[in-house]
């Protein structure tokens, strides 16, 4: 796929001849489309926890300023894949990564890549809202401070809260604890915190699964908006959610295989694989 580096190139799903043959790439998911100048590209990515292999030869190209959804049944490796993008897996002692995962063409697993610097480019939002037990303001400012972006903190905090659609609700209580907010507000606070230092990519691991419907729909709206400025990769167990908000969808199935990766519409309306179809129509999971 290095041939792709040349420049923008529109590649549609129909260009099937562009695919490597099945024999060459057994694990390549069905219908993997080339993506124009992908921000993140994974090639033959295997992830192991100790002796257990959690991901098998994942190939994926994640497009810029789009929402890419990862769906699949519990334990299929969605979170694992997400964490391998910004090397959060480094923090899990037994986790081991093989293959390549590149960010703007640079393999993030190269020795000269500092994972801390990497994570400053790729923000992350987690399943359970996890604000620090600090004030709302300090929560948002934390990343700025850590990353040494300390001038104009005030302004940056406000901007981030604004973008996370939270400013109106908390403007006059910036000093109160982040833990005093409702679950949905907390999650938006975490999003504000993640975007405050202005990363390029935002990874979200089931950001709405712990929230009620109203809060969920707010987060969904937010995700769509964020895609105007950021590349968003989102894990969700809710297929309707994936259908609603994402441009691309990757379906992982049990055992850590990426079974299908394509435009969201395609996946939901006319998946290549029967297993994906079964999964999407709720035959299991």
């Amino acid at each position, binding site marked *: 796929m290095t041939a792709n580096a040349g420049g923008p190139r529109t590649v549609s799903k129909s260009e099937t001849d562009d695919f490597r043959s099945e024999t060459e790439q057994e694990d390549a998911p069905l219908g993997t489309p080339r993506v124009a100048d992908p921000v993140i590209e994974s090639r033959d990515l295997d992830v192991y926890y100790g002796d257990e292999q959690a991901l098998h030869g994942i190939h994926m190209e994640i497009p810029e300023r789009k929402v890419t959804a990862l769906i699949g049944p519990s334990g299929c490796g969605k979170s694992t894949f997400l964490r391998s993008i910004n090397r959060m897996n480094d923090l899990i002692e037994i986790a081991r990564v093989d293959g390549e995962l590149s960010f703007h063409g640079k393999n993030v697993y190269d020795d000269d890549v500092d994972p*801390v610097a990497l*994570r*400053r480019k790729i923000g992350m939002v*987690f399943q359970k809202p996890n604000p*620090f*037990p600090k004030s709302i303001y300090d929560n948002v400012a*934390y990343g700025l401070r*850590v*990353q040494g972006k300390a001038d104009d903190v005030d302004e940056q905090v406000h901007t981030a809260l604004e973008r996370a659609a939270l400013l109106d609700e908390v403007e006059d209580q910036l000093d109160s604890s982040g833990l005093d907010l409702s679950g949905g507000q907390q999650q938006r606070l975490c999003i504000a915190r993640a975007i405050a230092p202005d990363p390029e990519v935002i990874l979200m691991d089931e950001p709405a699964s712990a929230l009620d419907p109203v809060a969920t729909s707010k987060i969904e709206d937010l995700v769509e908006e964020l895609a105007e400025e950021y590349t968003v990769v989102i894990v969700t167990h809710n297929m309707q959610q994936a259908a609603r908000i994402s441009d691309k969808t990757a379906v992982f199935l049990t055992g850590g295989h990426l079974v299908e990766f394509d435009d969201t519409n395609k996946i939901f309306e006319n998946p290549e694989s029967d297993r994906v179809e079964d999964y999407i129509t709720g035959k299991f999971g």
Partner: protein
Amino acid sequence: MSQAEETAEITTGGARGIDDRKNAAIRYVFFSCALVTVLTTLGIILVLIQGSVEFFQQVSILEYLTGTEWSPVIRPRSYGVLPLVWGTLIITVGSALIAIPIGTATAIYLSEYADPQVRKIVKPTLEILAGIPTIVYGFFALSFITPIIQYFVPDTGTFNAAAGAIVVGIMIIPMVSSLSEDAMSAVPDDLRNAAYGLGATKFEVSTRVVVPASLSGVIASYILALSRAIGETMAVTLAAGMSPQITTDPFEPIQTMTAYMVQIGISDVSVGSIGYQSLFAVGLTLFAMTLSMNLISLWIKSRYREEYQ
């Protein structure tokens, strides 16, 4: 099955429910066990107050609380408890200066950096320090710590507050390190992940996320450790001396409240004399001091619970 029958099977039919009587009896037995602790406190207060009342019939409370000379046996007699309180404070503050930084750093190391295997061994090993009989610390101070101090500060006498504070400090390190480590491990990984996700280094995660998040638990551990230091007896009796005085020089001998109590407890003063009664007054004062420390720690802990849900 008819409805009446059904109903009969789930109702008590006027009688008591399944094993209800037995359950009630068992509940009372357990309750009495819990009550023992309340009786213990009552007992302590009664015993201390009874002795103190006799003491305060002869000594004015004002003199006791504000006087700066303590010599209930040596003439001219004076009954100002402040030198004993001072001695206790010196030991407490001194041991805190040792145990708090060392214990906290140990806790951070164990919780954030050490391999789980290492933690599994080191934590209980350190806890042994808190379990070693304090009388052993007393001898350790005299035979090991004091000579070292004397090497550096040659004028130091055999008994000195510093040696007492150091051994008590060593003894309470594990209270700080274990309880703080518990508090730090209780910080959800979510928070660590959040910080890593923002591009924080491990150092920043430890010091700027974990420590602040566990602060109330950590502080509660300090207070518990300090209240142990206040109540510490044999080590300070042996190491810090029996000279009630208000001095800021840590290389001078002092006397703590507990050391005074041991002294009277095994002394030749006649029971019923004012010297003997002073034992209860000092005991009551000590009880009041640890009580207030414990109330503070309870208060902090209740805040701590709130914060985590």
